[in-house]
């Protein structure tokens, strides 16, 4: 006879390891690690059934600092490793940690496919718009003109938007947040965890050594309220330190514009109301860029469909009763003949 003992609730500190965390002092990764550990505790995650999978880069050291199962794989390939793991063990709670170089340059193909397949994993993309571990080269998300060791005269490549990439790949959960906004970060991590299927979370993360302040145009305290729009499902899109800025669809155009409440008779009723299930809207919101527009944060899109594993194992269950039942029978299907002794 077995008795079920309710598992002890775990604290954030229970998800720490004995390994010294070796990111640069002041790195945004520390805040993300702390938020993830708190999220794990808050959602009641079990250490034994949680796995962190990562690629290569600063962010990808993450698994060593979480006391769950962890797999630090090779550059760009974490989505493929995580997919294989879920095909072996669909019941596991799998998190993927990647960066703008790992996830969108060398691993862009795998990120694309893990999203379109809708494998049930949480993908945290730490976007610092730079290669940190290799000492500061421009990345696929670096802005044009980024001066780096490999682009002394400034980079010429047009940057990629992780959020738009994810939407384009068919992701069913796309969210955005900032390393230093602990409460929002934890809230979004919990949403990502609650979502079944591939949940994609772009985290703006400041690299203090190679790209310090690159997000200051919307994260700096002095401008943040006017340059950040925190969207919530069913709520009108209002921002600004005086809560009087709003986002409106331009009449007759598929474009958004910033309006000021009470100016020219603009009222709250004129503003867009966030709808997480509207993918077109998510695309429009994801495209907005400071300083003309606020940076849109929060869950831009969430519209679940069956996960990859649901469908794959559904097929396997359906096939269970079909065909030859055992290997002996299988190998004897088709024409056989017997030689008598």
């Amino acid at each position, binding site marked *: 006879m077995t008795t079920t003992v309710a598992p002890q609730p775990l604290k954030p500190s229970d998800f720490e390891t004995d390994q010294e965390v070796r990111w640069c002092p002041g790195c945004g990764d520390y805040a993300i690690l702390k938020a993830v550990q708190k999220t794990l505790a808050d959602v009641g995650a079990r250490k034994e059934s949680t796995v962190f999978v990562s690629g290569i880069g600063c962010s990808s050291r993450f698994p060593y600092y979480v006391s769950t199962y962890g797999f630090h794989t*090779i550059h760009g*390939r974490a989505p*493929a490793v995580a997919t294989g793991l879920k095909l*072996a063990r669909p019941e596991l709670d799998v998190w993927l940690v990647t960066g703008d170089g790992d996830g969108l340059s060398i691993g862009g193909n795998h990120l694309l496919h893990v999203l379109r397949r809708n494998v049930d994993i949480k993908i945290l993309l730490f976007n610092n718009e730079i290669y940190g571990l290799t000492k500061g080269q421009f990345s696929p998300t670096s802005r044009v003109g980024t001066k780096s060791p490999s682009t002394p005269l400034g980079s010429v490549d047009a940057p990629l938007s992780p959020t738009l990439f994810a939407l384009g790949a068919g992701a069913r959960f796309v969210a955005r947040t900032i390393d230093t906004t602990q409460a929002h970060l934890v809230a979004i991590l919990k949403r990502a965890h609650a979502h079944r299927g591939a949940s994609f979370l772009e985290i703006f993360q400041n690299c203090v050594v190679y790209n310090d302040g690159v997000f200051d145009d919307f994260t700096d305290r002095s401008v943040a309220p006017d340059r950040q729009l925190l969207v919530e499902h069913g709520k009108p899109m209002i921002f600004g330190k005086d809560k009087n800025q709003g986002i409106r669809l331009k009449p007759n155009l598929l474009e958004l514009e910033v309006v000021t409440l009470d100016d020219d008779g603009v009222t709250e009723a004129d503003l867009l109301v966030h709808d997480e299930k509207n993918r077109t809207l998510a695309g429009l919101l994801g495209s907005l860029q400071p300083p003309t527009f606020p940076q849109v944060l929060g869950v831009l899109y969430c519209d679940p469909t069956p996960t990859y594993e649901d469908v794959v194992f559904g097929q396997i269950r359906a096939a269970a009763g079909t*065909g030859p039942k055992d290997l*002996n029978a*299988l190998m004897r299907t*088709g024409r*056989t003949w*017997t030689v008598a002794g």
Partner: protein
Amino acid sequence: MTTATTAPTSRTPKDAVVIRFAGDSGDGMQITGSEFTLETALAGNDLSTFPDFPAEIRAPAGTTFGVSAFQIHFGSKEVMTAGDELDALVAMNPAALKVNLKDLRHGGILVCDVATFNARNLTKAGYSVSPIDDGSLTDYRVLKLDVTKLNAEAVKPFGLGAKDAVRCRNMWTLGLMLWMFGRERHATIEWLQRKFAKKPAIADANVAAVNAGHAFGETAELSSIGGFSVAPAKADPGTYRTVTGTEALAWGIVAGAKAAQLERVVMASYPITPSSPVLHTLAGLKQFGVVTFQAEDEIAAMCAAIGAAYGGALAVTSSSGPGIALKTEAIGLAAMTELPVVVINNQRGGPSTGLPTKTEQSDLYQAVYGRNGDTPLPVISTSTPSDCFEVGMEAVRIATKYMTPVMLLTDGYLANASEPWQIPDVATLPKFPVRFHTDPTGFQPYLRDPKTLGRVWAVPGTPGLEHRIGGIEKDYDTGHISYEPENHQRMTDTRAAKIDGIANDIPLQAVALGEDRGKLAVVGWGSTYGPIHQAVRQLQAEGASVSHIHIRYLKPFPRNLGDLLRRFDRIVVPEMNNGQLVTVLRAEFLVPAEKFSKVTGKPFKIVELVEAIRARLEK
């Protein structure tokens, strides 16, 4: 209806026959050959087949590069190769004749569909004058038949469109050849009725075509040729089937998982010729708990296999040379994290894209040496289609027991070739159950079995064993990241010792044929088994001191191999590459092995090997 198959009194008995069916890639030659093979297997002959098709799915009709062929060698004695030269060639069009005639022996039978020898097709094939009429075929016994017309008459009652009617031409020809060699038609007719169950008119027309071809042979004036008979071969008692290397390998993997008591097989692959059929075959075995994953690329396939292995499944990936090249970094990760993955390489002609549909064994260096860092891993190879079953199981055993990726080298020839196989009883197969680690006491991820040096397999989901692994060097004692110089030395030595130690867990190298010492050892590996064996047998019959040694375990080698080789005065290594095993043997054992290489995309002929070996015996 089919009682008279062996009736004619005029049948000439033959010990062995080689036939090649050749036509346009749309003419259904592979199906024709497969059905002839099935009827031949059911007639109790030993056999070996060799399908040879172009890389293009539908090359322009009538061209030489669109010719598809299927060769079968069958006989009343042991058959080990698809045959050197043809006793009979079926040429469905001028291009098929042009490409294949050189392999037909003088005095051989040539069946041509003369209706296709029109100006247009002749030009496409590069003939200025029809070979049917210009006297160039006088060395052969030619059956000039208007197969197109004879077939059209046979299928007329079924009201098929012109296109569908012409498609039955191959079945008419099959019927004729079945008659010629005294084969039954039952299995073919059953197969046609099953295949076209939803299109009864097409099924009936095809059956009528088979019967008409057969009846033509029986009643028409074929006095110059007549019929032949090939008596059944001796075989051990048991149940048999024909099996391709691909089928045997897929079943071997499933049998291996069962022997390891692993519930789930995860097979992750990316489409590539000639390896895709392994994925296709396993995709049809979902009822055995097989999960197949068609990944976005080769790298993802290998990485997904690694993820699955980490999760405690039997992980498999398959590819061919270029795909293996892409997987290489990830194979290193599997070696570094010591996770079991069976990596199948269906070798094809290289380098680069090379000859996708042609066979070669030129990825041995890649398998043994082709990774960054000191990354040894076991390499084993298959030698015949049926051998693929046992080797598939063996790859699973080594991978799971030693916690390592295993490279399984097979090739495009074995993948598609078929031969009779005595089907094993699963209950009698070896068992090698896996035990996942579950004890948290003193746990660290690189705890090793002191005997095998294999690390523990600790699967996520197990309470108390939470740990982190990865591609960075780990501490021998704690499993944490370590950049310590002495530790890297120790881990490198340990990884090497683990793989080398497998030599104590595999059979000693046996001599396939002949004495274990003598004048000359002919050493091979892979699909050259059949031709080497036959060549050595032929020379032994002439009294030569020559032996055949065939190596399955290429890394590590069997521990007696060096001693065995040193007992011969000379060593020659025939390979379908530019000399790879020969170099490895020389490096490993400092023996004066000589190469004999062939890279034409085609298997060795016995006669080529006999000549090469004889030259070395005479020197």
